[in-house]
């Protein structure tokens, strides 16, 4: 009952003038970012973060939540209509969605996508509210070994869940953790790795690393591989005739299994740190392909089956609620965008975790309410905004990217009015580009920078409390279980590769 009352208060909070205004702005910007060439959802949230510095923590989180929610939908429109996925999570949509468009069923495909986003988003928001307090209560009993295990699990899963080289991801993580050690140590007050340089003695702000690596690094990567010079105007002029047509209730009920599987997958995968909307969408599509070889509409999955659209889109939007659970209950981000939201909390002096449910209940339930209202607002915007969104595709990527770089610099400078921050983000922009170029993933670097201090603090506190007895991490049941799962997650890909090599040798012999 308390939960419902708190949620009601949160909903009332959302409709205050300032919060509602930033909600609307966030929904629009999130959807634009998902469609604009050269911008990704995570980049957009990163760029918005420095500007929330001067806001209160509540409007800041409402803005970022709204951007996060609507950013999971915007790219679906261009993916279905023009075979241009706005985000990696929209690639499964073009397999079936674009195929439906080729058959003259674009409006229906958009309708399925919208309903999937609505149902997946709302259901995951309900699960998020239901799960958070119980999980937070369990987390209240955690001590430093458990916090170390949880942060280590978060770092391990962002490494293990990548699609590229595991060793490169681990190296990237090490670099991020090292960056977090620069400056003055929190326990002893000793200066570390500052080399006598004044701005390094204050430490390297994770905000600068994020903005540099995700913002400028991504722009340099795309510059290197070639921008689309004059926008993707080809074929988008036909957007005027596209609209959304909602499927009939009978059609929705006929594929209720796809909705259920997609949503459940999105929530479950979203909860796992490092997974996010893209992994959720692909995993859900993969699961759907096991259940649906041929759609009730007569089409195979991948050839214009609505089930493919529904599974991927419901999972992508449902992952938002899932990713917020570990963030709000334990301070472990479940996705790239929630890593940015963690940064927003920290910027305002709040460490998300179980204590926040006690000390800032109103704030937490305002974030919950922002997800509910954001999902509904996203669907309303998605229904009416097709034409202007498609027009945005015509924006030349070179010009958009130039503005992105300037926004990165403004964001970095606005926080401390310190010119040396510009040098730092430029350096990390080049680092981000080099990492991408040599296939070192950025996500572990950024998460290592954000979670590094927490992880070190939990580790060192445990060592001090338990007289350097490292076995305590494995003898305590909760931390032991979590660490074993982390180790399995990290070693399984190596074992899988060795097994594959052994089998190939056997077959040759």
């Amino acid at each position, binding site marked *: 009952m308390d939960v419902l009352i708190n949620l009601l208060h949160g909903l009332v909070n959302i409709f205050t003038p300032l919060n509602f205004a930033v909600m609307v702005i966030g929904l629009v910007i999130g959807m634009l970012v998902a469609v604009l060439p050269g911008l990704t959802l995570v980049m957009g949230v990163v760029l918005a973060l420095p500007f929330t510095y001067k806001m209160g923590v509540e409007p800041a989180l409402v803005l970022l939540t709204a951007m996060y929610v609507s950013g999971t939908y915007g790219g679906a429109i261009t993916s279905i209509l023009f075979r*241009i*996925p706005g985000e*990696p999570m929209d690639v499964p949509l073009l*397999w079936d969605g*674009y195929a439906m468009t080729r058959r003259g069923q674009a409006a229906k495909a958009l309708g399925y996508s919208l309903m999937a986003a609505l149902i997946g988003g709302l259901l995951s928001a309900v699960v998020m509210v239901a799960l958070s307090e119980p999980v937070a209560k369990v987390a209240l009993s955690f001590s430093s070994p458990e916090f170390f295990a949880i942060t280590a699990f978060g770092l391990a899963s962002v490494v*293990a*869940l*990548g*699609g*590229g080289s*595991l*060793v490169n*991801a*681990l*190296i990237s993580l*090490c670099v991020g*953790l*090292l960056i977090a050690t620069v400056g003055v140590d929190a*326990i002893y007050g*000793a*200066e*570390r*790795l500052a*080399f006598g340089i004044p701005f390094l003695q204050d430490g390297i702000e994770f905000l600068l690393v994020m903005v540099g690596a995700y913002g400028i690094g991504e722009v*340099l990567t795309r*510059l*290197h*591989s*070639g*921008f689309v*010079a004059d926008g*993707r105007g080809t074929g988008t002029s036909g957007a005027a005739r596209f609209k959304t047509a909602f499927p009939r209730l009978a059609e929705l009920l006929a594929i209720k299994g796809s909705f259920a599987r997609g949503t459940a997958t999105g929530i479950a995968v979203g909860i796992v740190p490092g997974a996010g909307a893209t992994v959720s969408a*692909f*995993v859900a599509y993969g699961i759907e*392909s096991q259940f649906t070889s041929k759609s009730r509409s007569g089409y*195979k*999955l*991948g050839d214009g089956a609505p089930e493919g659209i529904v599974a991927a889109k419901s999972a992508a939007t449902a992952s938002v609620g899932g990713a917020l659970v570990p963030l709000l209950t334990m301070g472990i981000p479940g996705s790239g965008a929630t890593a940015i939201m963690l940064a927003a909390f920290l910027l305002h002096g709040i460490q998300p975790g179980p204590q926040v449910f006690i000390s800032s209940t109103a704030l937490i339930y305002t974030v919950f309410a922002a997800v509910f209202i954001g999902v509904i607002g996203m669907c309303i915007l998605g229904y009416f905004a097709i034409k202007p969104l498609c027009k945005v595709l015509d924006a030349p990527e*070179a010009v958009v990217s*130039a*503005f992105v*770089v*300037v926004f990165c*610099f403004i964001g970095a*400078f*606005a926080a401390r*009015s310190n*010119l040396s921050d*510009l*040098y730092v983000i*430029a350096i990390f922009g*080049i680092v981000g*580009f080099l990492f991408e170029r*040599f296939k070192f993933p950025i996500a572990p670097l950024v998460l290592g920078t954000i979670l590094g201090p927490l992880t*070190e603090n939990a580790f060192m506190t445990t060592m*001090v409390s338990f007289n*350097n007895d490292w076995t305590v991490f494995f003898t305590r049941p909760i931390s032991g279980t979590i660490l074993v799962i982390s180790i399995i997650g990290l070693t399984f*890909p*190596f074992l*899988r590769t060795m097994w594959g090599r052994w089998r190939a040798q056997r077959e040759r012999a």
Partner: protein
Amino acid sequence: MKGRLRLALPYAVLLIAAALLYYATTLIDTPRSGGARLGPDFWPKLIVAAMAVLCIYEIGKRLIVGSTRDARGLTAGLAEAPLEAEGEPVVSEWTPAQPLDNRKLLAGVALIAAFVFGVAYVGFFIGTALFLASFSWIGGYRRPLSVVLISSVGAFVLVVIFMRIAYVSMPLGVGPFQHVSTLLLRLLGV
């Protein structure tokens, strides 16, 4: 052999960096607490050591064994499109189709460096306008009139939003550039 060396190069660079950083961690002031407690140097040393071990593993694998096969993360292979019934491949638009352009990249990096170092001298408005124009041009947007218009109007809008409305104190520049910035701000009522 050249190919193997090229593949091992990034890891060699990182290994050298790890060695230098390890040396730097030995210079960290550690408290004299009877040797029982882990000092402030323990955590960075642990990370640097882990990084070095990973780099040595990759260098050994690529140079000695000559293998480039990597253990991939758990989501490797997820992004494969289903078989197309009609045989037409579905191409996702974000995979780059053009060859890599090192000149554009170097020009972009140079522009960013020029902006970062030059904005304190030329001021935010002029620096931003020049940057927007140059970067758009280098990026391949070759419509001179549009470039001039977008960069000057864009820079002006950014000054209005951040210096007039949000009161962020951006650099004004020096000498004549400072005069231009001050004049613009006076016109905007700041």
